[in-house]
């Protein structure tokens, strides 16, 4: 398919302006003018519509295909939330309005959404307060680690490292390192759990925090989680909860009750807003009482008369983390989703997410190796090591699934599982869809013995065939040039 630049034809345009009826303004001073041509594509409106409609048809999304991408919770994004986010009263106010004198009264609806959402998320996670500012999960992580750092500093405590399991999301050590901490990695033991003996050895009064995902990236809930938290608190360290896998435990247990001090959520995962190219994320961060003073400003607060305002009084705040109030429309859609499902609906969502994952696990266990053979939570992790004996990698199976009309599961993560394939079906898929996917996986496993070449050459039905990932990484060509 041609790039829109290649469709350009000199002088063609997508607009026509009336003759100017005002005096010509002075041109910009030379120093503000660009030196080289912008070389924008010159195309008609119809060219633009066709170009982007064609691109949109190539998109592989939750709206078009089953998308069991482990650790990403690609559940269906209900469309009614789009309608709510598009309501004039929410979509049109300028974000500066509540900061202007007397402007707060014009933005009460939006402020109330932020205020009430903070209460809902606090209730769901058992935390004392939330900041809605962080714009994505990793941004929430960095915010969370900065809060931890501010907390220790204000106590005059110099702490050097953060403890993280080797099964963690890669963003965890990255966030800790960017915030200035050393990372101490704890290996996973043979049962698939955090190695408690090594953990106890690593933990000391230089430990700032322990960052955990629970259930972890193997899809397993750590039964010792309370003990881990208690041990950390005993040396003055804080507990950080990576909320990527919250979809497994809604209404079943709360990170705050277990003893977590900081929680980041991915509204775009657990609370069903579009992501992965379909929209921006939102990564609100919740804290226990002892960290409230450090939260970013502004915070939405409520006056005695019931109106809402922006409060800038947090003296120990870590400051601004993002402009304004976070990705407001995303927060709004997640808010609508939570209210629509209600308590019972959220609990049911988690139960069905776990049920669907275990259904996949039990139907595929005869065909693929299961390195940690336990009842799983919302996702299950297989290994293609059996197929590798015939030269078939997880990557080949993933590409074959594309031909069968499925987005591949996450592969090669978690890193501790060789040839990992991490399947997260979510609660929004029917049994028929799961069965079709399972059949395709079984087919791939049979082909790996009978005709591995088919797997090696997949995908065959897509606009582009097997991409040379190695060459793309070694010789990146990121920019179109005329």
């Amino acid at each position, binding site marked *: 398919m041609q790039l829109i630049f290649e469709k350009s034809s000199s002088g063609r345009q997508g607009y026509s302006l009336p003759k100017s009826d005002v005096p010509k303004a002075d041109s910009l001073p030379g120093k503000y003018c660009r030196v080289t041509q912008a070389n924008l594509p010159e195309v008609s409106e119809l060219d633009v519509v066709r170009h982007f409609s064609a691109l949109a048809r190539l998109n592989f999304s939750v709206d078009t295909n089953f998308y069991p991408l482990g650790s990403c919770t690609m559940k269906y994004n209900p469309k009614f939330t789009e309608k709510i986010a598009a309501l004039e009263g929410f979509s049109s106010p300028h974000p500066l309005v509540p900061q202007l004198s007397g402007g707060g009264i014009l933005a009460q609806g939006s402020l109330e959404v932020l205020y009430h959402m903070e209460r809902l998320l606090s209730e769901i996670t058992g935390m004392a307060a939330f900041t809605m500012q962080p714009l994505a999960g990793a941004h929430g992580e960095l915010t969370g680690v900065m809060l931890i750092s501010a907390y220790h500093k204000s106590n005059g405590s110099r702490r050097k490292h953060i403890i993280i399991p080797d099964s963690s999301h*890669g963003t965890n050590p990255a966030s800790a390192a960017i915030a200035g901490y050393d990372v101490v990695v704890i290996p996973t033991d043979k049962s698939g759990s955090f190695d408690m003996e090594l953990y106890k050895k690593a933990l000391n009064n230089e430990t700032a925090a322990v960052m955990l995902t629970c259930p972890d990236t193997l899809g397993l809930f750590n039964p010792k989680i309370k003990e881990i938290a208690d041990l950390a608190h005993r040396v003055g360290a804080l507990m950080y909860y990576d909320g990527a896998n919250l979809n497994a435990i809604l209404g079943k247990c709360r990170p705050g009750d277990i003893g977590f001090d900081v929680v980041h959520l991915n509204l775009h995962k657990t609370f069903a807003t579009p992501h992965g190219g379909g929209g921006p994320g939102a990564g609100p961060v919740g804290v226990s009482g002892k960290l409230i003073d450090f939260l970013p400003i502004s915070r939405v607060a409520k006056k005695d008369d019931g109106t809402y305002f922006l409060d800038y009084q947090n003296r120990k705040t870590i400051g601004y983390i993002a402009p304004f109030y976070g990705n407001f429309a995303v927060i709004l859609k997640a808010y609508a989703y939570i209210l629509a499902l209600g308590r019972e609906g959220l609990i049911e969502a988690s139960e069905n997410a776990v049920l669907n994952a275990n259904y996949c696990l039990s139907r595929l266990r005869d065909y693929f190796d299961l390195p940690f053979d336990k009842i799983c939570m919302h996702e299950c992790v297989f290994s293609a090591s059996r197929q590798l004996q015939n030269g078939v990698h997880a990557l080949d199976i993933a590409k074959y699934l594309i031909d069968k009309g499925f987005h591949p599961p996450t592969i*090669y*993560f978690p*890193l501790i599982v*060789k040839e990992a394939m991490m399947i997260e079906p979510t609660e929004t898929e029917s049994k028929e869809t799961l069965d079709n996917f399972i059949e395709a996986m079984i087919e791939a496993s049979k082909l790996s013995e009978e005709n591995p070449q088919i797997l090696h050459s997949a995908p065959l039905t897509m606009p582009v065939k097997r991409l040379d*990932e*190695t060459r793309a*990484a*070694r010789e990146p060509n990121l920019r179109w040039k005329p």
Partner: protein
Amino acid sequence: MLVPDNIFFTKDHEWAKIEGDEAIIGITDFAQSSLGDITFIDLPKIGEALKQSAVYATVESVKAASDVYSPLSGKVLRVNNDLALHPELVNKSPYESGWFVVMKIADLAEKNNLMDAKKYKDYIENLSK
């Protein structure tokens, strides 16, 4: 899996070839084959201090980014600049042209923490079981 004699190994799949008070270090054949096609290697600078078992380099492959730990303590004398343009050398020749760093050894006694070829062979055989 290639395991040459006369060099030493870590459990994290690094090797060290000791020549007097210097060592050539890199990652093993087992490491490169598990990583898959390597696309980028972040090496230390000349003069940088290395500590046994501490991270001194990072390797990125199509699958993942991985830390590389130093088999011995010491100081970087030379780095393999060819790897910047040709990371595939590590896949093709992990023990020869795919070397990472030549280091000055601080404490030769640390060699006792490393495995010889026979022990390393047994070690990786057990891993793949």
